[in-house]
């Protein structure tokens, strides 16, 4: 059940150049939230103003006990630039949690998780949940440089196989995260992925080749975040053959079966 609440920022920190982590006190949101869901945010100062629309940002972490949640975002345009100027005590207007979230099928014993760039942000909650449920995880993180490997320190302390890659070689393999994938996929039951479309397309292709099913988290420009405006649609295969239909990334997603997504549609 989604709701709208106005909540206080507990802290905001620049964790890498142009990358910010914000912690918000929002027990009502945390209570019903699932890994893979996102928030639709507005900073209170801009109500009715400019920029006009909300911004969708994934939940990066949440603590059911304390009621705190955190997001990680990159400053891209005017909206995120203004968000980055806020600090402890300022308020944000939250709609959430939104979307279907990831699922964890029983048969997914050996899983591969692939995150690229900002796409790493929404994966942290599902990785935690998979560990809770004792699944065997190989986690691939890719980014331009070490700073972009979000939650790296946290992952290093977890019981999982971690493979990193950076374009500039500052951490792990020098190159693209997808270069490393094939070996790990062989024998895996399930895959979770989030990142640039180009990356996810390669993931999809490789997973298909090895018959591994899984889930992908998509991004589209959003208006309402309620399923009303039809601005956020993505092409999802239906039936056999090449049939597809538009599905809403906000309420029918943002998580879709990876094998059913038509990228660059």
């Amino acid at each position: 059940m989604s709701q709208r609440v106005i909540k206080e920022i507990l802290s905001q920190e620049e964790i890498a150049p142009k990358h910010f982590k914000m912690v918000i006190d929002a027990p009502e949101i945390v209570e019903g939230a699932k890994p893979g869901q996102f928030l639709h945010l507005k900073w209170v100062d801009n109500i009715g103003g400019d920029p006009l629309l909300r911004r969708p940002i994934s939940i990066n972490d949440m603590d059911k006990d304390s009621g705190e949640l955190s997001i990680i975002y990159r400053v891209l345009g005017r909206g995120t630039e203004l968000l980055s100027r806020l600090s402890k005590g300022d308020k944000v207007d939250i709609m959430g949690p939104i979307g279907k979230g990831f699922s964890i099928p029983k048969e997914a014993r050996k899983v591969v998780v692939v995150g690229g760039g900002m796409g790493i942000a929404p994966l942290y909650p599902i990785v935690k949940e998979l560990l809770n449920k004792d699944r065997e995880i190989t986690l691939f993180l890719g980014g331009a440089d070490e700073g972009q490997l979000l939650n790296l320190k946290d992952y290093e302390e977890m019981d999982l196989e971690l493979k990193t890659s950076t374009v500039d070689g500052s951490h792990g393999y020098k190159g693209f995260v997808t270069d490393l994938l094939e070996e790990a996929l062989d024998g895996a039951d399930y895959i979770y992925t989030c990142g640039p479309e180009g990356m996810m397309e390669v993931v999809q292709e490789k997973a298909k080749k090895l018959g591994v099913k899984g889930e992908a988290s998509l991004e589209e420009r959003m208006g309402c975040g309620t399923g009303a405006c039809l601005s956020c649609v993505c092409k999802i295969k239906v039936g056999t053959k090449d049939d597809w239909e538009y599905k809403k990334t906000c309420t029918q997603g943002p998580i879709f079966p990876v094998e059913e997504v038509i990228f660059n549609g």
Partner: protein
Amino acid sequence: MAKVNLEVDLNGLKLQNPVTTASGTFGFGPEYYQYVDLNRLGGVMVKGTTLNPKQGNATPRIAETPSGMLNAIGLQNPGVDHFLKKILPEIRDYKFETIVNISGNEVEDYAKLASKLNVEGVGALEINISCPNVKKGGLAFGTQPEMAASVVQAVRVETDLPLITKLSPNVADITEIARAVEEAGTDVISLINTLLGMKIDINSQKPILANKMGGLSGPAIKPVAIRMVYQVAQAVQVPLIGMGGISNADDAIEFFLAGASAISVGTANFVNPEVTMEILDGIEEYLVEKGYRDINDIIGKAIEKKNNIV
């Protein structure tokens, strides 16, 4: 707070209060059940409905602009038959009036839609002659008085439901179209639909919307909408539903003063999903504060009566 009367009678279309939601911005209503007490709304204009299901345009379908947004959804909708079979039964018991926004490529499409929608549970039809995104017909109907009138006439003979005709702002003289559709038998006029606009990404050097052009909505267009409501209110006798950039109760009141008997909230639902409830409360507060007992007492108040003009 039952101190003031909020009920409005739009030429036969009775609304429990004058706050409705604009077509295409509120789905069919239930999309907002988590944020809004749907039973408190005066009316819901459902998403533009066509004879056959429509897939709509490619994405990106929206772009943000200063105090506004562009959309080119392209009328994605499941078609009128699906609406009647699956959706209407789900929403007909709410206390809001279900107003079906209809769109077609030809005059006969509108007539067929009207005849199919002549069923219980539908409170009124809103004829969309102004959607700027449909390449064939859509724009032309709304910018030429004779064509606008012919659509209204064709619908009129098919139904006894209250008819609302929704005007496009992309014209030189909106009163001309307003008079034409009044004469053709519309019961109510709603305005404004979106202004045609465009945004270009200076990095890719291409239009942002896949459809290139789209409809501009949101606070940015409010001054144009107020002006048009003010003009049309003085040009026709039928009541008006005003919309365009309404984001709070003050904006809504501006429309009443300009001559609208009811209002529709569109883009603001995206910004604040609870906004319709806040507007409803705010209208009541304003009336109480100013000592009015009836919303009808402020409609058109900003219009100087002819005999007062020197």
